[in-house]
């Protein structure tokens, strides 16, 4: 099963979206979207982490390498972090990281950072839909896979 | 006073214009009355500074413009210096005057100033007065 699985019916290009989210806010927000029976594009796969502070920029690179066409990172709103300040650290880190990604030529429309709380199911749904549609329009991302091969 | 309060009032363009040219935000005012309490001339005003700002909050453009308050304000900045919300009624009054003066309507005719006053008063009073009252 090493080949890229197709998220939906054959036909158009269906992007792969990897979401790196924190356990306390965004993961719970995504759960709430489910409990509320909302619907969103099926292209996303969540990887749960304790806190956005745990997110190593290399995770993002790895995700792209492994064929993700878009990556999104989301955690608690600044100030709401379950661990006091983890998301401040990550935010600081991302500022530098964003520059680096831009430098390496990744279209920043493929990488999204956002804050979604446990009650913001709607925001989660909108984010997934928007990111999916945007990345879909951009087409597959292959630069990193080539590096990998 | 009695008025019907409508959505249009709250979105008053006149108030927005005054806010723009004065750099003040009428919504910041929480009607504590400190400005009116300390204003040396509020006793002469149809509406004290805080009431003018209240009328602006409610978009009562006419009431604001009809009041003599803007002409009475001496610009002493006492209102601003004690306002807990950092609102300057002085600036707002100047803005209101500007709207009138920029239309070319003078509040004061120079001929009306008595000669002894014109001669005796310090130049600065005349300069300042003309600025505030004459377009």
């Amino acid at each position: 099963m090493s080949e890229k699985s197709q998220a939906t019916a054959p036909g158009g290009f269906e992007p792969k979206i990897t979401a790196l989210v924190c356990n306390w806010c965004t993961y719970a927000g995504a759960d709430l979207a489910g409990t509320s029976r909302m619907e969103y594009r099926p292209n996303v796969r969540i990887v749960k982490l304790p806190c956005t502070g745990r997110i190593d920029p290399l995770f993002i690179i790895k995700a792209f390498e492994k064929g993700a066409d878009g990556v999104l990172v989301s955690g608690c709103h600044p100030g709401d972090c379950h661990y006091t300040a983890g998301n401040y650290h990550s935010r600081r880190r991302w500022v530098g990281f964003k520059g680096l990604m831009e430098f390496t030529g990744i279209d920043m429309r493929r990488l999204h950072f956002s804050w979604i709380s446990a009650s913001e199911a709607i925001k989660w749904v909108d984010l997934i839909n928007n990111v999916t549609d945007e990345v879909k329009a951009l087409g597959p991302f292959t630069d990193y896979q080539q590096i990998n091969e | 006073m009695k008025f019907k309060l409508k959505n249009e009032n709250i979105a008053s363009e006149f108030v927005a214009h005054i806010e723009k040219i004065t750099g003040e935000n009428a919504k910041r005012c929480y009607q504590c009355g400190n400005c009116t309490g300390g204003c040396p001339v509020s006793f002469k005003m149809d509406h004290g500074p805080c009431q003018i700002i209240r009328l602006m909050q409610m978009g009562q453009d006419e009431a604001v413009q009809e009041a003599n308050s803007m002409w009475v304000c001496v610009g002493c900045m006492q209102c601003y210096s004690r306002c807990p919300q950092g609102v300057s009624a002085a600036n707002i009054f100047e803005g209101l005057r500007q709207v009138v003066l920029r239309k070319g309507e003078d509040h004061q005719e120079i001929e009306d100033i008595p000669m002894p006053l014109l001669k005796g008063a310090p130049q600065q009073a005349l300069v300042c007065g003309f600025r505030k009252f004459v377009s």
Partner: protein
Amino acid sequence: MSELKNIPYYPGCTLNTVAKHFEDSAKESAETLGFTLSELEQWNCCGASYPLSPDNIMGLTGPAKVLFEASKAGESVTTLCSVCYNVLKRTNKTVHDDKEKRETISTFIEADYDGSLEVTHYLEILRDTVGFSKVKESVTRPLKDIKIGAYYGCMLLRPFEDVGIDDHEAPTIIEDLFKALGAKPVDFPNKIECCGAHLAVGGKEGDDVVKQLSTCVMRSAVGSGVELIVTSCPLCQYNLEQSQEKAVKEVSGYNAVPIVYFTQLLGLALGQDEAKLGFEKNVWDARPLLKEREV
């Protein structure tokens, strides 16, 4: 103090005319203290009011031009009149802090000025550069405990963050000076209240308002035991003088007191010839009181 020689000085529209005695006495006192207030070569009227609506750039061009002229003369400029001080200091701050406005003003006045000048009031020179203790040493005719009422008005004090000569609710700079001169300053509640300012010439409501406000100031002072009022602004001086005239006519039992510029008494205390200090120009003459106290 040795480096103090020439201080660029901006007179403004009134100090050369109606308030000549303010200027003369200030200049005399400066000479005694070892420096010169040297008038800017070129200057225009500051407009006598800082434009309170920020979009009024034209109102800033006058004072900005003054500041530009002053910047040619040195790193600071001093004023005697509180209004000039207020207008120049605030304009200077605006030019300094607001780049956009600075550029617009530059195009209007056709000169580049960046707001780096220091705008001071003569009182500040006396306090911060000369030092009141030094002034005290130079006193040859102490003011013999005359009860002075220091009238500040508005322009010297407000708004605090732009002007900031002293605490805007409880200033003491003039009192401190007069302590050094041997007088006995008396605090009175209305010393920071407005005199009515330009309403002296103003419209339908004006004259009446000025009378009420200035009379309040005078009564508050006299009621607190003040024997003589000092001012630092020709407009304050004028409004108080005029109102006292009316008070004397209309309020029974009202005791008029002399009203003079602070520089006149400063000059006197520093030993200058009384005749040069323009006491005869004040509506309310201080000389009888001075004589009575043998100053």
